[in-house]
């Protein structure tokens, strides 16, 4: 019997003001419902327009668990199509990226599609005459994802044809993307460096929860960042502080630092750590960068842009942005206990290469499968994935600094160790899980 399918009341009972039921992390049926409802109703990140600069350029990825292809159409716009041949279901675009020219061609029977998905041709077309083909789904070609929006080159989609609009969904949270783009003197980013892909045997939401969990670094990362600081302290006095130590050291800042850095929550499950201060606030200046920013924006605005040092911005459901270090992390759900983490990096167009070098070092040291920081995070996620199966305790606690009046307040700033953002995500989870679920018939 279904426990959750067709039972929105049962789904609502999983989220309490300060607790969340373990089934969100371990139940197979809920995972399927997340893919059907949550990932269809929310605006989900697809890719960056710099990955497809020319007509015919494409990039294949997934939205939830569905295969899609992002492609630059012949008219210059970015389209997102389900990567599925209308004929037999074969994924039409097979490589991660490439250029398909003016059309996609399926490798199975040679059906071809324009880059907006419409059917162009198929061999032996006469064989479909008088078969009612025009009224079949196949005649409509590769399906386009219902709603696509490109915001400052970041491509998002909502696969449910009805639902919340882009501007309403993101609200004031787009300011983080703005800040990251504005850090380029030319106001433009390019995907650069290459993507790190890190496989996690845990539920995708554990990773999202972790992004604004400021009470774990001093515990879980004592082994890596703490060791880095200790080894560095043994260096002879006067040795310049290496970039790697600048990156590691803030992870083992005391609790007060994380309390004071602050947390801001927006609508619909979006929010960020690092309002007044951040782990990215004290990196050494990069020669030549400030001058280029002042030339582009003037001193006052350049100061404002670079003084905004937000730490982790969560875009619900599964995206995280680090503006000051030009990093994007995407938590791609594969199964209830399996998540692929992709960590992407950007070049600030017009800025010195040293910024990209630092971004890549950060990504390597913190987000790679070889990262000594990531190792301890993954260890706790996998232990939680196993531990949650224990009977006797059914709830995960998210009540730190809970205030009953918080529910109706948006765009607020609070103590950096408040778990308000996790609760904000859970409320959004409920909203977009149940938005398209039919209500139960009354017995």
């Amino acid at each position, binding site marked *: 019997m279904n426990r959750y399918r067709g039972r929105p009341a049962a789904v609502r009972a999983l989220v309490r003001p300060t607790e969340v039921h373990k089934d969100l992390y371990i139940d197979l049926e809920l995972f399927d419902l997340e893919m059907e409802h949550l990932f269809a109703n929310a605006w989900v990140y697809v890719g960056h327009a710099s990955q497809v600069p020319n007509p015919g350029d494409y990039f294949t990825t997934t939205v939830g668990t569905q295969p899609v292809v992002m492609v630059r159409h012949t008219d210059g716009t970015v389209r997102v199509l389900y990567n599925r041949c209308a004929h037999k279901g074969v994924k039409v675009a097979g490589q991660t990226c490439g250029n398909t020219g003016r059309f996609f061609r399926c490798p199975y029977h040679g059906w071809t599609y324009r880059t907006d998905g419409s059917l162009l041709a198929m061999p032996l077309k006469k064989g479909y005459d008088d078969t009612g083909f025009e009224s079949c789904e196949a005649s409509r070609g590769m399906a386009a994802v219902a709603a696509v929006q490109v915001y400052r080159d970041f491509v998002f989609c909502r696969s449910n044809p009805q639902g919340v609009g882009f501007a309403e969904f993101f609200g004031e949270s787009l300011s983080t993307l703005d800040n990251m783009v504005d850090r380029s003197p030319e106001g433009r980013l390019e995907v650069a460096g290459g993507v790190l*892909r890190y496989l996690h045997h845990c539920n995708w939401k554990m990773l999202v929860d972790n992004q604004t969990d400021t009470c774990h670094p001093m515990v879980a990362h004592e082994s*890596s960042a703490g060791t880095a600081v*200790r080894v560095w302290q043994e260096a002879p006095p006067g040795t310049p502080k290496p970039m790697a130590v600048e990156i590691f050291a803030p992870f083992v800042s005391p609790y007060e630092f994380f309390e004071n850095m602050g947390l801001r929550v927006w609508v619909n499950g979006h929010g960020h750590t690092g309002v007044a201060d951040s782990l990215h606030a004290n990196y050494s200046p990069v020669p030549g960068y400030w001058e280029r920013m002042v030339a582009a924006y003037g001193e006052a605005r350049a100061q404002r842009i670079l003084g905004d040092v937000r730490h982790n911005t969560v875009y619900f459901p599964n995206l995280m942005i680090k503006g000051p270090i030009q990093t994007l992390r995407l938590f791609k759900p594969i199964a209830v206990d399996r998540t692929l983490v992709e960590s992407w990096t950007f070049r600030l167009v017009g800025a010195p290469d040293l910024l*990209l070098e630092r971004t890549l070092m950060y990504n*390597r040291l913190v987000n*790679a*499968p070889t990262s*000594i920081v990531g*190792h301890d995070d993954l260890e706790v996620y996998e232990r939680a994935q196993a531990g949650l199966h224990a009977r006797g305790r059914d709830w995960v606690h998210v009540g730190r600094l809970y205030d009953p009046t918080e529910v109706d307040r948006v765009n607020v700033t609070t103590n950096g160790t408040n778990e308000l953002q996790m609760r904000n995500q859970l409320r959004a989870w409920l909203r977009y899980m149940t938005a398209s679920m039919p209500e139960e018939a009354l017995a």
Partner: protein
Amino acid sequence: MITITDRQLVDFVYAEARLLDEQRYDDWLGLFSDDGHYWMPLTPGQRDPRLETSLLYEDKLLLRIRTERLRGRRTFSQQPPSRCHHLLQQPSVESADDAGGRYALRTAFHYVETRLDTQTLYAGWARHELQVLDGALRIQLKRVDLVNSDAAFGNINLFM
């Protein structure tokens, strides 16, 4: 000028792998020159460790942080610890500059890392760029190219 035989070069590569399998990290770090690096590129044929992402590109300071961490009391992901096993094909000497004391070797390998009940096999090629310093061979660069370097991996905890 000290003459280094091919046999000495090949034995150096075998001995280095043995130190890693036996987790004798202080001795292993001692094999690197002060400006030595350990590099695991992300993409096949990668040329640039600076402006292209790598899995690892570590100088001696970072390698020391990494090895000290492995034995730390609060290194939870190493409780219980990982173990590893190198299986090397005979290294081939790719270049030898006796006058400058510089040598390069290429070694195909299979590497197994285990922790708890999971055993993972990796395969690739190692390139050792060695230099004679104070009469002894030292690693200037150890480059590890996995055959599937751009695949999605779980934790890679130790050194290949």
